[in-house]
């Protein structure tokens, strides 16, 4: 052991007084050294030549140290916005669904649009944690925890809507298959019921997956709190009137959440197995949830809804929108927590941008296929929906001499621009490796994916079969505020997550550190004493 206590080194490195020693010279063309065009070179997934202990300190630091001065104002803002949803739902409940802009022509609008939007957002989390895990994509490790958290929060936001959009929400329990005296069961042929099962399964499995992944990290937080308490028994209390100390609270809560995790090999063995099993269970869910959500539309008779392409198209769209949302959350987080840039590198961003480009192109292909099928079907009702409910802007209609145009043409074209055109920037490395541009495109994609659901739902409904009963939908302030409120709920929950939960899977990140590799002969890894609790199997290789 060196003379300098590892904690001291760590403290200096964290404070920036001691520079991390780069393992490889930075190539200015490769941005931060993680984006390398040479496929034979495996660049680092964690920058800054971090040791195990440093990783632990960084991740635990988010919950143990006071956040920057931005945190409280931002939290207050987002939680007040979240409060709007509460108020709006209360108003809706005591007044009636009519406070929204729905009508007898357009029975669903923002409610189901938002539901599908949020559910779609959730897909990236499960995809990253399950499918990428099974595919052994190592770069997933530093984003999976946050993406899973995002999934949970998105499902919370999404699950609100089916509950509150019904006319008699106090009777919504009749959806559940509860045996009752009248022997009336729910209608198992209804896609809405499949939705209920799909979403609740998805939410449950995602929650389990997320929570289980956090257990070792909770234990780390617990142990660190206990150690600090032992070192410094005279900590000040959390609040002057409260005699409880912060580390006491941490030890208690994280101790409870870590379910007695002791970092034993047996624990790790069970954990790894369970993790794989959950990943296996989750993988079909990624595909099933949005497929089933798409059945709400695909099984109906409505032109614009009745389409066999919907399940794959919805899944691709969901992954597309979900990755955009991960980027939308991680890019600002990187800026707000500077040392997060070592964990979430430009390579992560680029990889996600590539997936976005792929899925965005799939979505664009689906849009084109919808038109082809509408034409190929020979059904005038189908063609009419695509041309005169979606595509046709007034100026084009005038040019072609049509007597009408699509009233929601702007929504359709907004969707096309955001979802099909804007990701095309990612063909250029310059854009997909620029945090700024990726952020801008992600914002556009998120907007575009909302419009996609709006276009599918509202434009198909408002001009259906009988022109005598066509109508329009206009949102009311309640519609808008309810949706804005759910954004508040989502961001508030995410802020709380960053503040109080281990935002990165420490053990998994340590797995992808060079030190964890059995063939690694570089710098030794400090931080053993600092509580780097990597799996034992990997420890051996390092020594």
């Amino acid at each position: 052991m060196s003379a300098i206590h590892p904690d001291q080194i760590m403290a200096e490195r964290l404070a920036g007084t001691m520079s991390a020693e780069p393992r490889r010279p930075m190539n200015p063309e490769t941005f931060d050294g993680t984006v390398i065009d040479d496929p034979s070179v495996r660049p680092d997934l964690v920058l800054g030549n971090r040791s195990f202990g440093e990783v632990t300190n960084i991740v635990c630091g988010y919950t143990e140290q006071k956040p920057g001065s931005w945190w409280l104002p931002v939290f207050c803002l987002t939680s007040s916005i979240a409060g709007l949803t509460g108020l709006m739902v209360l108003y809706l409940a005591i007044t009636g669904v009519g406070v929204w802009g729905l009508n007898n022509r357009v029975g669903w609008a923002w409610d189901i649009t938002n539901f599908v939007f949020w559910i779609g957002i959730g897909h990236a989390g499960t995809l990253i944690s399950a499918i990428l895990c099974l595919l052994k994509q190592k770069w997933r490790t530093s984003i999976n925890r946050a993406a899973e958290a995002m999934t949970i929060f998105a499902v919370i936001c999404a699950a609100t809507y089916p509950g509150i959009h019904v006319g008699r929400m106090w009777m919504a329990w009749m959806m559940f298959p509860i045996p009752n005296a009248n022997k009336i069961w729910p209608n198992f042929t209804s896609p809405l019921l499949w939705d209920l099962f799909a979403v609740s399964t998805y939410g449950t499995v995602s929650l389990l997956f997320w929570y289980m992944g956090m257990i070792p990290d909770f234990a780390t937080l617990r142990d660190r709190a206990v150690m600090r308490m032992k070192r410094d028994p005279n900590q000040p209390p959390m609040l002057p009137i409260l005699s409880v100390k912060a580390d006491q609270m941490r030890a208690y809560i994280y101790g409870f959440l870590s379910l007695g995790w002791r970092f034993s090999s047996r624990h790790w063995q069970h954990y790894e197995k369970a993790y794989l099993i959950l990943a296996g269970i989750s993988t079909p869910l990624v595909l099933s949830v949005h497929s089933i959500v798409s059945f709400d539309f695909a099984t109906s008779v409505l032109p614009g809804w009745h389409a066999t392409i919907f399940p794959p198209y919805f899944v691709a769209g969901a992954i597309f929108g979900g990755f955009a949302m991960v980027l939308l959350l991680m890019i600002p987080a990187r800026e707000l927590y500077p040392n997060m840039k070592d964990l979430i590198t430009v390579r992560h961003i680029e990889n996600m941008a590539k997936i976005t480009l792929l899925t965005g192109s799939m979505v664009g292909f689906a849009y084109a296929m919808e038109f082809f099928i509408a034409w190929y079907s020979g059904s005038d009702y189908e063609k009419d929906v695509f041309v005169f409910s979606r595509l046709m802007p007034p100026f084009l209609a005038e040019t072609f001499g049509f007597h009408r145009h699509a009233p929601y043409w702007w929504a359709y074209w907004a969707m096309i621009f955001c979802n099909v055109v804007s990701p095309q920037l990612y063909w250029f490395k310059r854009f997909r490796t620029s945090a700024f541009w990726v952020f801008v495109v992600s914002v556009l994609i998120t907007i575009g994916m909302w419009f996609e659901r709006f276009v599918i739902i509202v434009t198909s409904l408002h001009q259906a079969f009988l022109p005598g009963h066509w109508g329009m939908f206009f949102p009311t302030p309640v519609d808008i505020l309810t949706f804005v409120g759910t954004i508040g709920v989502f961001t508030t929950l995410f802020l709380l997550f960053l503040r109080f939960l281990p935002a990165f899977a420490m053990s998994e990140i340590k797995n992808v550190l060079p030190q964890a590799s059995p063939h690694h002969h570089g710098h030794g890894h400090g931080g053993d004493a600092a509580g780097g609790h990597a799996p034992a199997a990997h420890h051996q290789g390092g020594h």
Partner: protein
Amino acid sequence: MSMDQCHSTVGELPVVRPRAAKHAQVGVTGKAYWRSVEDLADTPDFRDWLEREFPGGASRLLDSSRRTFMKLMGASLALAGAATLPGCRRPDHKIMSYSRDVPEEIIPGKSLFFATSLHLPGGSVEGVLVETHEGRPVKIEGNPLHATNNGKSSHWAQASILGLYDPDRLKDPIFASEGPATPRSWDDVKAWSKRHFAKFAANQGEGLAFIVDKKRSPSRDAARGMIFGRYPNASWVAYDPIQNDAAIEATIASFGKAMREVLHLENADVIVAFDRDFIGDDPDRVRNQRGFAAKRRVLDTTSGMSRLYAVESNYSLTGCKADHRWAVAPSAIGAWVVALAQEIGKQKAGSMPKPVADLVDAMPAIRGVAVDSAAVRAMAADLLGAGPGKSLVLAGPTQPAAVHALCIAINQALGNVSLALRASGAFTVRYREMGGDEAASSVQLGKLAANMKAGKVDTLVCIGVNPVYDAPGSTDFAAAFAKVPHRLTASVENSETIDASTWKLSMAHTLESWGDSEAIDGTLAPIQPMIAPLFGGKSDVEVLLIVADAPVTDGYEFVRGVWRKRLGETGFEKAWRRALHNGVFDEAAAPTDATGAAAAAAALPKFDAAKSATLLAPMKDRVPYTPDGGKMDVVFAVGMPGDGRFANHGWLQELPDPLTKIVWDNVALISPATAEKYGLKREAATAKKRKARMVTLSVAGQKMTLPAWEMAGIPDNTVIVQVGYGRTVCGLVGNGVGFNAFGLSGNGEPDTVGGINRRFAAGGTLERATEGDRWYPISSTQMHGSMEGRAIVREVDLAAWNKFGGKPSYKDTDHYGQPRELKFAERLGELVDSPAMVSAYVNPQRNEKAPHNPAVSEMNELGETPDFAFGHQWGMSIDLTTCTGCSACTIACQAENNIPIVGKIEVNKGREMSWIRVDRYFSGPNSGGVDPEGVMFQPVACVHCENAPCEVVCPVNATVHGPEGINYMAYNRCIGTRYCANNCPYKVRRFNFFQWGTKRYQGEYVGRESLKEIGIDGPANHNLIPARLREELNEIQKLQQNPDVTVRARGVMEKCSYCIQRINESRIEMKLRNMKSIPDGFFQTACQQACPSDAIVFGNIRDAGSRVSKLRDHQRSYLLLGFLNTRPRTTYMAAIRNPNPSLVDSARKNLWDHPFEHGGHGPDDGHDHDHGGGGHGEPQKHGLLGYDPSKSFDDRGYRMSLAVLSGSAGGHA
């Protein structure tokens, strides 16, 4: 209910008839007890009647405890009213339970029907049956025995039940002359009037004036006689704001007497209507619709149908049904009539009465009016070709007397006129002498107003009229009214006139009073009360009797007295009882014994051609005014709320206008070209599509501001304004709805060639309102008028039908190789390409021979099989040829099924609740400014699909299929996901977005005062107030609701149930009578029952003999959107039009030989199409994605051609 309701349809009814009759008598005693028992009980008539009717119970009835049912009900209902209106009734009657002395007629839960009749705006009369539940009237239906109704009814008759339960009704007589307005009792009224009118008895009635509503009522005439007996010099004005003075004047000229026209359209093969909407706003429209439909109901290919030409300014229902229609400014229509008369004279020399013919011949071609001479030639040839007594030429209320007189002369020349008392022989129009009140000209009102202004009137009695609101602006009536010192007004509803009166007398509603009526065709009908007056009002006759200080002021006794005199003493009781039961007085009882009839016949007026010619003479001298750039013709049409008296009836305010589909407003209808000219174009942009510019319309110095609305099919420089809107004092529903146009209409000063009358004004000017130059929101239930080329309403010309309709069903195979048969109408549209045997059910309509699916034909727990081969299988057929779009079905459904109104703001959002709506489509090219070639109406309610898309998607099993093929809606089970509505291709499901069912429309709510203070009142949507804070339905309003139908809560989906309550009641009756099944016609659904043209037929489709089965199998039947394989139980029958071959172009004629040209399906059409996969005669495509931009209506890749309808697209083949 069903049993009573159907005595029209089921031949004999041994049980119910006497029951109803007896009950009517019981009602008499109840009512009498309640009012003035001492008087009544002591009259010899009463004793006599009692002894005869109830010999056993007479003594009991005479003792102090007369517990008859009506008494109890009257008392309890009044107390129910008193509970919410403290102080308005002293609780001086005991409430007795049903536990003792229940009349045997009363079966709790079972409705009873009583006959009465209604006076409606414009002098129309309808005979009705009123459904009562435990003594409470809930629904009005047409009386099958009344010649006007024949079991049908108009939307006004249906909606007038709301007047009875109007919470804003006058409740007590109010005296407002001295000091503050205070409620008084009727004894006070009587005492005051005895005192006050004594001076008129002394001075013969100088300074006493009466304004009464125009109606034909023997008892009112008798009361008028009593008034004149006591006050001989009083002035008496009978007045109707929408009357047709010109027609009266013309008959006086032609026949020497004021005569009323009775149309017999069932005899007319050729009809020419000059601005005459005999279907839509004619007083006799219910009868006219029936007669018209009789000649249009095409069931075979040989009988043919009538042909209707319409030359009109407003786009009326008549114009919509016309085979040829020309939009002509009302002032120019006269020229068309002259041209037609000349042409008839030319084609058949000498057929016109000589003086008229001479005059017409001498008339120069009228300058400035382009008459389509080819059209006139064709009309004349058609009229003459129809033969005597088979054609009809009609003039409408906008036309001057000269035009009416000319039409009478033409009809006379064509041999269409009958002056016989009884309808017999070949004729299409009959004239009957008018009563004194009926013949009154509206000029009299102007004269009276002048007298009032001059201070010559001391006391004015207004009964059943509202002249302060609806008098012509030129009379300045409100000012004149204020000059009269004593103003007595009797009215059922609150009104502007009531507001300005010194004595505000609460009148009894028709359903609460005794009276009688004479329909246009002379049918005499009694009016009897269904319930004791809720607020103790008096009928109009009773008010007159009080004013006349008559010895008998009881309405019942007086009306009986009138009829005792009229029917004669012998057998009076029997005849009276029969009349009360049947709802009509026997013709034989009328004073037409042999000698009387002969005398009457001898006294009949004769057509006087020379006198008729005198009316025409000015036309020769004066060129009719035609509107030019600066001036407009203004037409006053009658809107859904009638002449304004129904303004507080929410159902009518929310009933869409048939053409514009606008609710809760009247607009200035103008043509697109006129809109362009005045800068009034609506913006095409979606957000402003529903908003209109405000305009100022001026006529002869009178002005009004209202929104302008453009509609194709209106002549240029013509404004159509509906009257009856803009009430300011009528109640929470109607106050401030729309704009009052009565001020612009004239006072009927005679002007033979145009000018101003109550329905037309020449020389109006229109300008965009400077003040309030803003977008005014308009609520319309249908903004899109084009079918977009879809085979929704299918329509062909008669020639094509005659050629192809008689052929047997066309057989081929579908995509899946399954054999199928196609009917004529099915071949006109999209084809059902679904495999034949995929349904879980065996469909009796498709003769499927395959074995049942054992999984579903097993009995379920309820012992039912879901197989449609059992029991009753309900179905409906709607004939689009005879449907006139009158919307009576919508109101009937609303009344039957407790459908709430939602208000203008909510309708604007698309949340109207009507279970049956009438879609309106224009046909023809849709390029701007071009008049539509036709208008088609299609009533759409739930079609009860056998493969219902709504059922599979409901997550909670709230909408499920019944064994009889009905798509049930279980309200208790519904949680309101609205998925069913989204998946319904017909969009017939209605969602309760708010708590409309039990909350009062526009009622109070907690916090309203505070909102008023910050300026939010009125325009705010009061539905956005939480339901708990809103005012509950008034107890009075609750009485109206049908106890057989659930009142839906918020958050629940609802829709047409095929009147399941009526089906179930019939089923119970069937079981009680030990019948095997419900016979055809045993009951009717509410819409079917109202439909005046009998376009809706309902019944058991498994019964091969039922009407609906036959219509369903008819070659004209098709399934709406049948290609979706929803298998609707409601079928539509394709519409047939009968254009004149000489007036249609060759392209349209070509389609008569090739009606399936675009459908291309079958060998007859001469096209060799591939019937294999997908090749179902793909129509020729144009432009992008198969759309032809220039033919937006008629070639859009559908298989039928709307070209068949519009005749404009022959060139595509």
